């Protein structure tokens, strides 16, 4: 039986990796992947606590999260294509029109 702490630690590492990816990478696709990493870190937590507390609700939530993530990726990729058409680049630094 693997202790709950291991799962939570793994989840934290994955979440933090995703967060750093979102903050420091310039490529929008990588940022989108990093966001997926953060989502999946939470999924790990859901599953781990579900098993630990014998509550099936956590696993149900994971399915919801996966579904939403899939939809979100579809929308995100569509936006990236639109951005690429507009500026011929997907470097996030180039998209800073909404400022003072």
């Amino acid at each position, binding site marked *: 039986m693997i202790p709950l702490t291991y799962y939570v630690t793994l989840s934290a590492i994955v979440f933090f990796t995703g967060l750093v990816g*979102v*903050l420091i990478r310039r490529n929008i696709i990588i940022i989108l992947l990093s966001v997926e990493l953060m989502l999946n870190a939470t999924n790990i937590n859901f599953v781990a606590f579900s098993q630990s507390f014998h509550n099936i609700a956590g696993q149900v939530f994971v399915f919801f999260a996966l579904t939403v993530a899939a939809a979100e990726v579809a929308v995100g990729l569509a936006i990236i294509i639109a951005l690429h058409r507009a500026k011929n680049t997907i470097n*996030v*630094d180039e*998209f800073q029109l909404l*400022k*003072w």
Partner: protein
Amino acid sequence: MTYELIPLFPLASFLILGIFGHWIKDKAHFVAVPAVVLSWCISILAFADVADGHHSTFRMYTWLTSGMLDVHIGVTIDRLTAVMLLLVTTVSALVHVYTIGYMQGEPGYARFFSYIALFTFSMLMLVLADNFLQLFVFWEAVGLCSYLLIGHWYDRPSACAAATKAFIVNRIGDFGFILGLLLVFTTFDSLDYATVFANVGRETAKTINVLEPLGGSFEVSSLTVICLLLFMGAIGKSAQVPLHVWLPDAMEGPTPISALIHAATMVTAGVFMVARLAPLYDTSPAAMAVVAVVGAMTMVLGATIALTQTDIKRVVAYSTMSQLGYMIMACGLGAYDAGMYHLLTHGAFKALLFLGCGSVIIALHHEQDMRRMGGLKDRLPITYWTFVVGALALSGFPLTAGFFSKDELLVSAWTSGPLGQVLAVFGLLTALLTAFYSFRLVFVTFWGPSHVDSHHAAHVHEPSPTMTVPLIILAVLSIAAGYFGIPEFLSPMFEQGGERDHGGGAIVIKLFATAMGILGIGGAYYVYVLNPGLPDRLAQRWRTAYEWSLHKWYVDEAYDRSIVRPTFAAASELWKRVDVAVIDGAVNGVARAIAWGAWFLRLVQSGQTQHYALGMALGAVVILTLLMVI
């Protein structure tokens, strides 16, 4: 009772002309004149009723009731109000008719009629009041009408300035009046004349420490304080020294207004008020002495200034001031009936003189300077003869109304005591001056060679009958008013009325007064007709006296230096230091601070998505940390 209709007719006329004046325009007199004539008819009925011995007081409307305070609009009809009603409605009706001719073709024709109707209403309500608050409200209302009418030609800066001056100077007096009103209420717990007069005897011992706010101790009878404060209102309204400065400037208004408001009715409100409140004034010898002395000072001052003025209306204005001084002095000496008698006869002959001036002014195309008149008696015979009647009455020439009332007044003053005797001597001297300046006016305007502007000289002619008929009626009244036995009619109103003895001294005073009048007329004839160069030589000889009279004793200049300019300077400083620096500075400063703050804050909004993401992450960390720590 139909007496409430007396003021309501002019009110209706005011409302109709005020609302529909734009469409009625030059037919305004078809509304205004019948209304005031109806009031006049009912006033006659009221007078007849009072003469039969009926006194009535009734309430028209309860205005407000709060604890002890019970204010209502009431009507009281007794001998005093009956004669005032007759005076106000008669003069008002004649002035209404006169205005038809005088204001013909003026752009503000309907507006003018609506204002004089409002004035007539307010003055009648003032006279009919049966409580102090109603007196005060309409006291202010007549002041407002005076302001509106002085400023009738509002496109003239001088008219606006005169209107503002009249209003502000009156405010000063009215401030005292309000304080007096409050003191009446705190002393008597009532504002009704009847209640106050009934309780006057109980309150004579009450005193007030007038130096209390300053920490001193000076006990004064509260009735004296009440009387003096109320008299402050009369000083303003009746143009007494030292608040007389507004009356001559008020001559900027159209001449019918000068006749109605600034000669016959509104300015006499102060005299009427003192007479109305006679039971109150009788309890305070100190206040009475002040009233008498102020009146006497005004009487002398006005007459000395009138000697040298060159504006025809201003001469009459200063004469009005002087005659008001006579009336106030008489009231102050306890001779209320004599004061009221002079008020009534003066109302007739002074209205006549003003309307006569108006007729001359119209004939000369709005020329008011006496030095550019002369030789008008053949061109304007009706105006001339009626004017002479007015001047004779003003001089106290035998058998005119002014003769009877001035004699009555001086005799009453003489018999009232030592103070009265001193003031009566001044009264006699003033009578001499009065006769002199009245006939200076007649001789310079109507006699001698013509100095009329050659453009107008050919067109000088008598005005229309709407203007001459009121002159003739007033001329008749200026003589007849002496034969109605007005003082005998009024004296039952006043306790001291019957006690005066008209013995040996009285005859001497009467002879003196008559002699003074005739001497004054003769003097004017000698100076202005027989020796045309003499006035200038006299002016050279007594240069200082002439200058003081010509410059109205420098009262306006003194006020200008001591009050007006410091006020302007203080206001200007306040404007620069407080308004601009503090208030505008605060408002603009807040706006500027917000602009700077916004400039710094908007740097946060970089447009970089990752900066926002970092903000979110840090925010989440901070919130989580807080949750865990707490």
